């Protein structure tokens, strides 16, 4: 299950999806909107994705993880649009016969998602908004204006 949604993510739906009588371990990672970042007081986050390619790249992460560890099933759901403080922007679930594989696959998926999946986050903070590029820590609001 690799999906974008503009609704709150239902963690249980992912848990049901990855559940399996042969899987003794399920790990999940839930990324939620924090109320602060680098000293800025955050009101909410806006997420934008490249639909189609984003899901495809998430599925690729799942395939890669299945090649590296013995996992039973994986699910990744990422929210798009406005995400209020405390709500989940991304949920990842991985099931496996044994816990070491489930932990490693889940960690791999979130680490790689942040590097590669075409999704972007804009912080809406007190006094402004700013696109975040976590690959570099760059702040894109500061990009120089067009010269010509």
């Amino acid at each position, binding site marked *: 299950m690799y999906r974008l949604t503009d609704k709150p993510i239902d963690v249980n739906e992912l848990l049901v999806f990855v559940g399996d009588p042969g899987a003794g371990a399920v790990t999940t990672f839930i990324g939620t909107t924090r109320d602060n970042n680098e000293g800025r007081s955050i009101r909410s986050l806006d997420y934008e994705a490249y639909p189609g390619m984003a899901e495809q790249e998430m599925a690729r992460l799942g395939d890669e993880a299945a090649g590296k560890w013995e996992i039973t099933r994986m699910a990744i759901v990422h929210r798009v649009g406005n995400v209020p403080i405390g709500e989940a922007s991304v949920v990842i679930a991985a099931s496996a016969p044994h816990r070491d594989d489930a932990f490693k696959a889940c960690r791999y998926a979130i680490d790689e*998602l942040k590097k590669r999946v075409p999704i972007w986050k804009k912080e809406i903070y007190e006094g402004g908004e700013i696109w975040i590029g976590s690959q570099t820590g760059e702040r894109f609001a500061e990009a120089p204006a*067009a010269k010509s």
Partner: protein
Amino acid sequence: MKVRVKLFAMLRERAGTADARHEVPDGATVKELWDKLRREYTGLAGVQLKLLYAVNSEYVTLDHELADGDEVAFIPPVSGG
């Protein structure tokens, strides 16, 4: 030939469009298309970001040659999660 251009996040905002069709010469590369966009959308001219490029949803390099009908995405540094 015609290609479809997809712009996201800060690129979308700077260009003022998310999705546009552009005419390019046969055999044009991603780089040539990007140079054209920077001429046509003044908001993109100053962009200093390290971009990634995807054609029909697969990552490619700047020298990738385009074909008629391709969907070409310009992907600024991602920040999902």
